[in-house]
């Protein structure tokens, strides 16, 4: 792929996102109300941040995938709120929760790097265990009674921009820079493209993978805190199938499941498409029974069209 095409990688999904938005806005102009855009932004932030993390893991190659984000959201939401209602200062509780997320990321990296356990399995383990732990800690009860300064993380805004959206943009900026402009980004692509050759080239493949898993786990933990703040409570059941949406977002955004290719911006656009769908289906008053059918169809169509577009692009060159 040449230099120029790189810049247009995200064009397909971006066009899809805009088209969906315009379509919804025409059918229901209220779609463009500030309040609705804020709602949409908050949801997109949740998926977007997770999808960026997922992009790191998928890019690292070897069929790596992170199935744990959804459960991590539940677990870290519970852990942070549990600490807060037990009197630990908000700031420290957040730091400890994010620290725990990083440990879980290292744990994933350890199994994948050292024991050669497929990422699918070790993160499936975390999916099950983290959700189980959330239930063990809470017995299913929500953790309530959170202080205002905590819920502000998701419910506050700065000149109309909800804080989660600001967090999303910060994360996007940083990760985009890391992936596109730093040595780590190149090494991640190299590892995903051909692990053996990368190792022969002096890339510390294991370290690269560790970092990818840690980024994903950390961002999931961050989302866990945002979600808890958004709901004003720690909910053990939250985040059910988020991992699938996060993976789908990444792929819609151009990440190749076989590794080596991916973009943080694309992941966020993919997350935007899915969040917009969730919102638009309600805005357009589509019967809820059809929601899943439509979401599934749009995911398939978006990915298929993008693949066909890239193929015809490659051919016409």
């Amino acid at each position, binding site marked *: 792929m040449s230099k120029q095409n790189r810049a247009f990688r995200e064009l397909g999904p971006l066009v899809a996102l805009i088209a969906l938005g315009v379509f919804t806005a025409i059918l229901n102009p209220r779609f463009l109300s500030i*309040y609705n855009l804020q709602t949409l932004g908050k949801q997109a932030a949740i998926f977007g941040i997770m999808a960026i993390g997922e992009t790191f893991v998928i890019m690292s190659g070897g069929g790596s995938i992170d199935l744990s984000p959804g459960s991590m959201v539940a677990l870290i939401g519970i852990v942070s709120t549990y600490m807060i209602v037990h009197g630990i200062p908000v700031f420290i509780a957040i730091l400890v929760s994010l620290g725990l997320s990083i440990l879980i990321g290292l744990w994933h990296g350890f199994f994948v790097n050292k024991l050669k356990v497929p990422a699918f399995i070790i993160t499936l383990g975390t999916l099950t265990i983290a959700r189980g732990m959330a239930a063990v800690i809470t017995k*299913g009860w*929500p953790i*309530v009674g959170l202080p205002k300064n905590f819920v502000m993380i998701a419910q506050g805004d700065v000149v109309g921009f909800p804080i989660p959206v600001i967090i999303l943009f910060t994360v996007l900026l940083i990760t985009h820079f890391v992936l596109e402009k730093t040595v780590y980004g190149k090494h991640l692509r190299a590892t995903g493209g051909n692990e053996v050759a990368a190792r022969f080239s002096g890339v510390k493949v294991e370290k690269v993978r560790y970092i990818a898993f840690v980024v994903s786990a950390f961002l999931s933990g961050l989302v866990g805190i945002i979600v808890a703040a958004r*709901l004003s409570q720690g909910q053990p*059941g*939250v985040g059910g199938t988020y991992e699938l949406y996060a993976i789908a977002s990444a792929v819609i955004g151009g990440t190749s499941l076989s590794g080596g290719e991916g973009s943080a911006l694309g992941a966020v656009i993919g997350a935007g498409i899915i969040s917009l769908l969730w919102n638009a289906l*309600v805005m*357009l*008053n589509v019967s809820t029974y059809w929601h899943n059918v439509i979401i599934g169809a749009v995911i398939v169509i978006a990915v298929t069209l993008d693949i066909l577009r890239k193929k015809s692009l490659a051919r016409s060159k």
Partner: protein
Amino acid sequence: FAVIGKSVHPYWSQVEQGVKAAGKALGVKTQFFVPAKEDINAQLQMLESFIAQGVDGIAIAPSDPTAVIPAIKKALELGIPIITLDTDTPDSGRYVYIGTDNYTAGYIAGETMKKLLNGKGKVVIGTGSLTAMNSLQRMQGFKDAIKDTEIEILDTLNDEEDGARALSMAESALNAHPDLDGFFGVYAYNGPSQALAVKNAGKVGKVKIVCFDTTPDILQYVKEGVIQATMGQKPYMMGYLSVAVLFNMSKLGVTNTLMMLPKDRIIDTGVDVVTPENLDDYLKYMEELGIPVKF
């Protein structure tokens, strides 16, 4: 004795408390099980495992009333007494049913909504499942209660048991329908999600909320007047009574126990409709039961 619930949920954890309390009071061993999410197949699996284990009695809240019939019949054949709680399956031959069924509770919720809206308005339902029986029955009861009124159900939103999505959907619904008059929340987290959305949109009191369960956050919103009414089923009572009935059956025999119970073999635990007006009474009552709610 084994009690099988439906899912990991505050409601079922209250049932569990009742079960444990009864077990302790009666000096018997109790086991309480729920699948992580509503899953009839997993429940059936548990039920069959208990039967195989040969426990002294089973109380089950079937996620699906018909699917468990063969297993219940099998248990009765083997001489294991079985009763149902929360959800009934009368055709199975179970001895007793304890609880208020979801349909009735939903119906009462509908009546409450009717009163709140004076029989006229637009309502959106939020639920966590379009397939779980408790959700279906609550919604059905609700719909039947408002059938002959001018209350219109604009949309039913399924968040797939995800609290964050429930909130997003409630927000979207407020946006899509600026003239909305009421929310009906089917699952425990639906009420708070809707309350949060309504509160943030500055529509407290304008959009009425009727929901289910009495988790602390719901009661908090009731206190603030964001939620107008919530249906408190009595999970603690159901759990406690289930063990008590099963205990009697094993000690006194099934027939003797049944003689003490209503002829229709239904023990109605009733529904507490908790509103801002009667909240204090409710809290006091809970405290007397030994399960105070703090928030």
